[in-house]
């Protein structure tokens, strides 16, 4: 599951496989923006059936790949 979520995240960020560190600050580093975030939500819904509402979680709660993975896994 972790790899699947990471793959989706890398795809929406335009990153190479394995390029993203689990604790990198996605918004602060400019890797993820509002568009990337929505793309991530839409892809998670399409590929994993996990639905996240746009204001369900704050950016602070989704700041790093590790945090995103934890949030998604808690909803599977």
């Amino acid at each position, binding site marked *: 599951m972790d790899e699947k979520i990471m793959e989706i995240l890398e795809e929406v960020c335009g990153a190479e496989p394995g390029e993203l560190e689990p604790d990198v600050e996605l918004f602060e580093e*400019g890797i993820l*923006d*509002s568009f990337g975030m*929505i793309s991530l939500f*839409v892809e998670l819904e399409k590929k994993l059936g996990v639905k996240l*509402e*746009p*204001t369900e979680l704050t950016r602070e709660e989704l700041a790093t790949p590790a945090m995103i993975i934890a949030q998604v896994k808690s909803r599977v």
Partner: protein
Amino acid sequence: MIPFEGLFFFVVLAVVLAVAAVLGLCRISLKWYGLAVTVLMCVLIYNTPQEFAMLAGFYLWELVLVMAYLPIRRRCAKRPVLWLFLLLSAAPLITVKLGSLIEPLHIIQLFGVSYMSFRALQVLIEIYDGLIDDVGVAEFSYFLLFFPSLSSGPIDRYRRFTSDLATKFTREEYIEMLRRGFWKLMTGALFNFVIGNLIWQRWLAVLPENGFGATVSYMYGYTFFLFFNFAGYSMMAVGASYILGIKTPDNFNMPFLSRDMKDFWSRWHISLSTWLRDYVYTRFVAASLRGEWFKDRRTGSYIGYIITMLTMGLWHGLTPAYIIYGAYHGLLMCANDLLDTRSKRYKKLKKKPVVEVISVIVTFHLFSFGLLIFSGRIV
């Protein structure tokens, strides 16, 4: 009485906040007291029978809509139903804005309608999202009418607001809120009444009405004036909120240090830009991605920026200056995004200190020119 203006308001505010501080320090919940003083403030602010009737009508309308939508949403998650409720909820706002164009509607005026409507719309959208499944009459009334941020924001969020209402702060936590609230009130007053007024009196008021040089000077002066005036109001509103036990979010974060327009909108009128991001831009882009409306996925984002920023302009008012201001920012956001995503060279360069300094200066001029449009001086 106008919030944060005139001696009478500040005398009433001082008494209201002094009592709140005593209650807060005694660890007595400020919820009912805050609601009671909000009603009192509304009576003082909307002090003619027409104004009060207009507010009462608006309040009941929004309350009925929210209370009616809750049980409907439990049974039906259809989007057109949400759209209908959003349209009904926004009807008073639209009517007031149209009043500037259509003479008979001009009699419908409601102070603070822009801010209160965005609060109500947000509740409806989050009921649809399933994030709000219960709304208390007292909580919603307090949230909708919360007096410190009635006239100039910030626009708080219902779930955040009610989580503060439900929190029993420790004495130490409340002392910290009191300290921060008082500091924000004082800084806000300094920004608004001293610096803002000085810029107005000594700089803007003495400028000639025409001429290129005067207009350039006005652009700089107006940018600084608006910041100190508006950020001052916001800080006073946030400060008063803190003392009432509500941690209303800050509305400004050093906008003059913005490195690009996206950064600017995360620092200027933050509560409005994040509202529009969460409830307009995000929704449109998500729909465009789900429905695969465009060949290039980013096209949805660009159209989303234009729609979002035009909404921002229209929210300020239906004048050419505000609409052009919205379109201008929509185009700037698209240009910003194109530069970010299409130019690898720019991506590398923008982290260099010299480029950062140049970016800050360019961004300052871009948003200053936007505010010159907003001011109505050149349109």
